[in-house]
């Protein structure tokens, strides 16, 4: 903790306040002011210029009846479910690396995990976009080569999806019905270096005697995971869960770059953040965009609140 300080001493140390002023000034100008401005402008009809007109709650009334907005909330919920599923490989990877006996190999694997991070995330994204390309793309080539495409076409015939055809390349990003699956496949095998390292640091706190005892009791590898490893990384899992849900809810960079500013074919990839971006920078309706932002903001704030209050994991 910081030293408690008497009033007289604090008065003598008044110069200390100068240290916090720059950070405070920046935070007020670029975080607090825009937030306040977003609330203020959500009550206006405003297209970004000097002229604006107070219209009260009209923006919010319009948002209530906005099918695209509520559709985008459904899409983002589906994406959250996807992303929850995508957490599993990282956990498996961390447990596997943790159970490797040799320390040297453990270190080598950690380094290998971090290596892909040297590629800027934007580049990874564009490489995936290239993978999704119907004609040149790696994904379609792999599916053709392994015969999975035949299986997909057969299943399409069975269930009547109408998306996979024998003699046409699969249009991953151009078929409305394939946009959500593409967003799911994206990033396979879904290993996040940061996530794995976080879990590993949690696993490392498990004492050897715990394992020894489990060994004596003849506990199998899966039960060991369930009763020893999982409870110990639950704090970390919870942390990344919360970050992931909030990140998915407000993120729209992925959709913007992969699918474009209108959310791809049929707008199937539209998420709330992207709708806000679209309304502001494509349609020029800044006031309405602020209102959409406020609605999203309230959702996220509510989730954060619920999470802090109720979702507690005992260590």
């Amino acid at each position: 903790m910081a030293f408690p300080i008497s009033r007289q001493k604090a008065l003598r140390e008044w110069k200390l306040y100068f240290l916090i002023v720059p950070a405070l000034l920046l935070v007020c100008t670029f975080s607090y002011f825009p937030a306040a401005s977003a609330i203020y402008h959500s009550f206006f009809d405003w297209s970004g210029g000097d002229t604006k007109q107070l219209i009260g709650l009209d923006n919010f009334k319009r948002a209530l009846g906005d099918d695209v907005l509520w559709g985008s909330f459904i899409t983002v919920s589906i994406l959250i479910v996807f992303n929850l599923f995508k957490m599993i490989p990282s956990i498996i990877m961390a447990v596997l690396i943790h159970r490797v006996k040799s320390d040297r190999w453990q270190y080598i694997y950690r380094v290998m995990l971090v290596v892909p991070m040297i590629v800027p995330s934007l580049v990874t994204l564009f490489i995936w976009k290239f993978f999704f390309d119907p004609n040149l793309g790696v994904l379609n080539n792999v599916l053709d080569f392994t015969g999975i495409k035949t299986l997909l076409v057969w299943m399409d015939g069975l269930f009547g999806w109408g998306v996979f055809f024998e003699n046409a390349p699969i249009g991953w990003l151009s078929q409305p019905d394939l946009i959500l699956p593409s967003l799911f496949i994206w990033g396979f095998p879904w290993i996040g270096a940061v996530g794995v390292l976080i879990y590993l640091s949690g696993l490392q706190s498990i004492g050897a005697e715990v394992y020894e005892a489990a060994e004596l009791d003849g506990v199998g590898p899966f039960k060991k995971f369930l009763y020893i490893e999982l409870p110990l990384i639950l704090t970390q899992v919870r942390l990344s869960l919360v970050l992931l849900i909030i990140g998915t809810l407000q993120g729209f960079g992925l959709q913007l770059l992969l699918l474009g500013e209108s959310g791809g074919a049929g707008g199937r990839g539209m998420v709330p953040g992207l709708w806000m971006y679209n309304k502001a920078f494509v349609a020029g309706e800044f006031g309405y965009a602020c209102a959409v932002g406020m609605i999203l903001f309230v959702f996220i704030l509510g989730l954060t609140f619920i999470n802090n209050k109720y979702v507690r994991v005992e260590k």
Partner: protein
Amino acid sequence: MSTAPKDFVGSHKQKDWPKHIVIWAFIIIEMFPLYMMFQVSFKDNASFLRNPWAPTPPYTVVETRVAADGEAIVKTRVADWSEVFAGAKPSDPSVQTAVKSFDLSVYKFRNWGFGLGLIGPYIANTVFVAVTGTFFTLTLAILGAYFFARYKMPFSGVLWAAFLVLMLMPGVANIVPLFSLLKDMNLLNTLWALIIVGVAGGQVFNIFVLRNFIEDLPKDLFEAAEMDGASHLAQIRNVVIPMSGSIIGTLSILAFLGKWNDFLLPLIVLRDKELFTLGVGLIYLDGEYVKQWGQIMAAYFIASIPLIVIFLFCMKLFVRGLSAGAVKG
């Protein structure tokens, strides 16, 4: 390896090799995009279409055929892998001779030159933004963290709360007003807009981590420095910065990475092509209609080089910092 007690982590009965196989399988798939990026960067579109997967073998085949009017047509093409060992196979029945020869020119090193020409200026802009931004972010955050960590000054509790609230507050609604704010400040279409917004956005997290760190430093050091008449700035320079080198290093890397990867703000703020940072530059490149994949992949690879350099020099900080910083945050 030594028989450390840690060996109990893995069971004695269980074999180790299945784990290695699974881990390697994951890692190989994970590395696949990197591999594709590298090998495609040496190809032109024709040889990419001919053989998308493997690197091109360093051979060319010269095929001669006689056209209907009796004139000889000579065509040079890249060899397939099957031809490297078995000898050249004519690609067409009308081909009369097919001669294979060793030829390094199948590797389009010029792609790299093109790639550098395409994104070199963007990289320069990004380096400027990321280095300046990281420097100011850390400098201001150290000053701020020192303020919170040194004494319990009047109002420091209120100020701390004001900072912490921002950690919970989603920033997504800010981007639209931020745009009009930057417009009013005449900062649109400047690199300084990116720097200043980046510095502001980095304060909360960095002050949070640094405050915890500075509070854990031995109090005697500060008292001794004060006895010697050191001002607060001198204490920061001579006590805080030398003692917290590793955490400052880790935070700098994280800040640099964040700024290097940013594309949303540049996309909104920048208009002139000369000012583009890597983020917008790559998006612009992606929008080109006819794509030379080799050049684009080379450009992607060049975009990663500064990060590779950082990685090579600070691998320990990278690996350790990511795990340690994550636990605190």
